[in-house]
């Protein structure tokens, strides 16, 4: 079997130095995306543990697996979690969720938690769509726009390219920046056509890094078009899997002339939605617990 270059690392993490048994209220957010599933468990509104894994063909199974993995080794059980909010593409298929909320609200809330109240624009570059969100200092959404018309500006498109060029997906960004001269972006906006265009470039003798540069540049240009409708205001942050691709992020920053806040060590940019969902879970739990 050939190597799976598209495969990105799945992992789980427990925040060190925390004792969940002393927590007042434990909540969780389950973000079932089209490509990846994320679970964040929070104790009293602070991140305790999370997991990131690939979404399988069944959303309920993916939700269950990601939750089990997030709980793994903590001694915590699903029963200890007071309130679970499902979000993302598969949000209505989370069997153990108390309710579902659209990912837009969750991403803004999560970004507000991760980077602080100065965040005004969140760009989420997900597996199969791309969202531009404006929010206020509380992480409340003021405007948003979603592009789910095609996969060219998304994680899935990047996976296709990593595979085509036999480059591990984590290396695509840095490799694309190793070119001496920036090539023209590939002209096709459709990932299927972009793929055949890339094959043509390889045949012409283009080195892999040049082809990757042309593709990352095309993706950055496409996303910048989306941002023309919802203007970028500072502070600007990027979430989702593509946030880890320096080749797309740096080119996008150059086009729009605004730098995104750097990634936070302690948070994976992919878990913004699940963190937001877990924070909504806490707020909803407290609201429902209050006598009317």
């Amino acid at each position, binding site marked *: 079997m050939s190597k799976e270059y598209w495969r990105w690392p799945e992992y789980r993490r427990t925040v060190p130095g925390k004792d969940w048994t002393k927590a007042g209220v434990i909540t969780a957010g389950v973000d079932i995306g089209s490509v990846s599933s994320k679970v964040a468990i929070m104790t009293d509104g602070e991140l305790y543990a999370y997991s990131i894994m690939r979404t399988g063909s069944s959303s309920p199974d993916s939700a269950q697996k990601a939750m089990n993995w997030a709980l793994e080794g903590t001694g915590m059980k699903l029963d200890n979690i007071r309130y679970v909010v499902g979000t993302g593409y598969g949000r209505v298929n989370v069997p153990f969720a108390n309710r579902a*909320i*659209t990912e837009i*609200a969750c991403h803004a809330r999560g970004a507000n938690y991760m980077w602080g109240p100065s965040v005004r624009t969140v760009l989420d570059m997900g597996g199969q769509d791309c969202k531009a969100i404006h929010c206020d200092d509380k992480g*409340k*959404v*003021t*405007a*948003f*726009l979603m*592009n*789910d*018309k095609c996969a060219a500006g998304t994680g899935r498109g990047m996976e296709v390219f990593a595979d085509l060029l036999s480059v591990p997906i984590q290396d695509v960004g840095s490799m694309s920046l190793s070119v001496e001269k920036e090539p023209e972006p590939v002209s096709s*906006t459709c990932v299927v056509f972009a793929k055949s265009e890339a094959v043509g470039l390889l045949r012409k003798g283009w080195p892999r890094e040049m082809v990757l540069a042309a593709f990352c540049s095309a993706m950055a240009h496409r996303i910048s*078009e*989306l941002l*023309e*409708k*919802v203007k970028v205001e500072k502070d600007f942050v990027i979430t989702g899997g593509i946030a880890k691709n320096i080749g797309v992020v740096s080119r996008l920053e150059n086009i729009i002339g605004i730098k995104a806040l750097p990634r936070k060590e302690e948070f994976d940019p992919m878990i913004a939605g699940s963190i937001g969902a877990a924070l*909504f879970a806490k*707020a*909803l739990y407290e*609201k429902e617990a209050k006598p009317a």
Partner: protein
Amino acid sequence: MIVHYGYRDGSGEYFISVDTDKCNSCGKCVEVCPQHVLEMITMLIDLEDKLVAAVTEEHRKKIKYSCAPCKPEKKPPCVIACQQEALVHTWKPVKP
């Protein structure tokens, strides 16, 4: 919150934007749309569920075609029906 439904591609820019703060859940826009482009959905706003107008999933990626029968009039029926002025169309086809 302003929700922009639609897209921008090589052929132009096509959006229906809904201001969920202005929307009063009356549903008149849904009734008057001859193409059934709009629907009422429940959104969580300030931890309360609110019924607001939205473009259906089915039409989001093709509103250039779905809304075409109501063009070129400046004010399509949905916009006229909305007394709250919560609906805005953006219609900028690229001139050939």
